[in-house]
């Protein structure tokens, strides 16, 4: 039986709840951000480097008079970074600074998310001989810089020199020699010859593209419009990998399911002889496995009919716009990239990356015999989209793993190499067409 008092009571409670709830929600929605700096530093796959970067960040804070509690510094695992970043951009609260590889600068610039940092890049150009053209090209758009170049990493052939020396075999100079060496030295199933990454990951796109260059294949011409994926060179390279996998059996079958750390793990567990990877493996071994570290060589890539060309990937610091304290983020980027600090990070980080300054390669660290081929690699190496530049379209080609899927068609679904290349070519044409206005 509802008395008047009951009704009034209930109406009163309901109104009170409704107003409190909406007030609370509105307050939340307009809450000002209290942190002065949000850093999302992707893990470097070499723990000592993560540590150094964090220490340097805190040193910068002290210098800038900011308390540690006023910032949020997170180290984020590789595959987590992108989904988190997408989610945060959608929600309108991206980090202030993060690090991503080539291609993403242009992708996010075209979506309007990035801070312009031409002043920092100009300062960097004046130090230590200036930046490599490859680094500069990645961040510039119509004369303005939208990212801070962080490193250049060639992808050498990481090799078990002890196995080669024990069998008195010379490092292979061509891909045919390479196949022979692998067949001779491998002892399946424990030790397999070649461990390229073949999962649906960016390492695969990079590895396959690298081998394509040696056979004359490429993604797009210098005008960034003409897609030339479908070519004899590409088909030959795809066929080469398929033969290595099926006929010569020098690639472990499990590589199809590897993620970006799969080839690292395989090499570090001593299960493969050769891996195509930037120096994340080498730097990690410095800390974790001195034995293997001492017998690891960084060789130039074997040559194909079109020559030997290494892959170079660059990394950049991306600074996002939705940031009430842009000066703090810019200051941190500058601090990290100041030559003295960079030198510490790279040399005590055991060469995880190469500095983007042309003049920093003359120190004792870089003169070591393991780095003897570094200069050559940096001089002849090129980016994923060469001779085109890295842009939003090439970023999406990597992000959607067009090349990796092409390899899977051949390796998993037994398609003809030509058919798979045609399909991939169509996909790339569609992607590039979509970005033509940008």
């Amino acid at each position, binding site marked *: 039986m509802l008395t008047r008092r009951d009704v009034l009571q209930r109406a009163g409670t309901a109104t009170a709840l409704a107003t409190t709830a909406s007030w609370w929600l509105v307050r939340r929605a307009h809450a000002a951000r209290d942190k002065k700096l949000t850093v999302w530093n992707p893990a470097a796959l070499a723990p000592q480097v993560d540590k150094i970067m964090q220490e340097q960040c805190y040193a910068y804070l002290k210098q800038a008079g900011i308390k540690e509690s006023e910032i949020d510094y997170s180290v984020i695992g*590789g595959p987590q970074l992108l989904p988190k970043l997408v989610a945060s951009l959608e929600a309108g609260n991206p980090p202030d600074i993060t690090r991503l590889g080539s291609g993403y600068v242009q992708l996010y610039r075209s979506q309007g998310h990035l801070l312009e940092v031409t002043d920092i890049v100009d300062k960097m150009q004046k130090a230590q001989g200036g930046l490599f053209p490859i680094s500069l090209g990645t961040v510039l758009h119509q004369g303005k810089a939208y990212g801070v170049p962080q490193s250049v990493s060639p992808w050498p052939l990481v090799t078990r020199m002890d196995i080669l020396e024990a069998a008195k075999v010379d490092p292979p100079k061509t891909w045919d020699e390479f196949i022979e060496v692998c067949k001779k030295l491998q002892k399946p199933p424990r030790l397999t010859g070649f461990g390229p990454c073949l999962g649906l990951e960016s390492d695969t796109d990079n590895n396959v593209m690298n081998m394509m260059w040696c056979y004359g294949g490429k993604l797009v011409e210098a005008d960034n419009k003409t897609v030339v994926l479908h070519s004899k060179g590409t088909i030959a390279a795809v066929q080469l990998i398929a033969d290595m996998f099926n006929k010569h059996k020098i690639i472990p079958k499990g590589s199809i399911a590897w993620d970006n750390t799969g080839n690292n*793990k395989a090499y570090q567990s001593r299960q493969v002889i050769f891996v195509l990877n930037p120096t994340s493996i080498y730097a990690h071994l410095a800390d974790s496995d001195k034995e293997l570290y001492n017998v690891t060589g960084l060789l130039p890539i074997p040559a194909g009919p079109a020559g030997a060309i290494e892959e170079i990937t660059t990394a950049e610091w991306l600074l996002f716009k939705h940031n009430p304290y842009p000066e703090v983020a810019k200051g941190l980027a500058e601090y990290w990239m100041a030559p003295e600090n960079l030198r510490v990070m790279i040399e005590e980080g055991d060469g995880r990356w190469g500095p983007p300054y042309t003049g920093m390669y003359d120190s004792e660290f870089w003169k070591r015999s393991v780095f003897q081929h570094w200069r050559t690699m940096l001089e002849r190496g090129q980016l994923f989209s060469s001779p085109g530049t890295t842009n939003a379209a090439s970023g999406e080609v990597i992000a959607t793993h067009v090349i990796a899927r092409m390899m899977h068609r051949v390796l998993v679904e037994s398609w003809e190499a030509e058919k798979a290349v045609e399909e991939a070519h169509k996909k790339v044409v569609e992607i590039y067409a979509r970005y033509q206005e940008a």
Partner: protein
Amino acid sequence: MTPSMTTSRRALQTIPGQWGKSKKVTLSMTSSRRMLKGLGNVVLVLMLLWTAIPFYWMIATSLKHDKEIYGYEATLIPQQPTLDNYATVFRETPYLLFMRNSIVVAVSSTVLSMIIACLGAYAIARLNFPGRAFLARSLVFTYLVPTSLLFIPMFALMSALRLTDSLHGLTIAYPGFDVPFCTWLLMGYFKSVPVELEEAALVDGCNRVTALVRVVLPLALPALVVVTFFSFTHAWNEFLYAHVFTSTNSARTVTTGLANFMSQDVFFWGPLMASTIMSALPPVVMFLVLQRWVVQGLTLGGVKG
């Protein structure tokens, strides 16, 4: 595989009366019956192994050195057991923070779900109002629509309300899948409480709410325990919402926090297993404590048939 299936099966076997009732079988052990029982036992043992072996593997891996985990041969028993992995978890990851977040979110969302579910179940079971049948049906419907389809719109909603990357957001999102299930379970149970008791209470001067709290809930205690347990476990184990809605460590729960560290260190399986063992403990402990009521609650109030 829904939890209700395994426990109800076990329950049916431990309450002999129920099993025998509909089959009208005498209790003499004929050879065919013995064989059937033996077969049943074999199947049970297999299912036990199926569930227990991964758990054992987790424990074993968490006690092994890196070299053994990544070595060529997989070993069943750790050759040189070590507690290093556990130390790594605490030293290099903010594990305690993740634990705290998980506990806060699971407990608050469970409490919230329970309150809403009790009131809702009572209303549907006892009161008569327009749209009652529709509400009951839509409850079950909502429960069956999975989070893996809803996470995108939920995410859009959360971003608009600025509730991402916070424990508040998760606490509000979790009752979304807890409340329908809890309400449905409680609904069935409340119906089994005799109406006369409540009518007596009403005559004695209680209003509906007091009748619920004083008469029905104490009688429905087993069901309440079951519902609390499932709510808590579901919220504790939840991965997708926690992963999509949170970005910084301060809001991450135990399920998503460690996934983040997986590619940080190339050799992280040891610490990951160690943290998984530790994260699995709260629900397991809860179940061991509440076991008696869970089994009872499931069979007497749950799935009828």
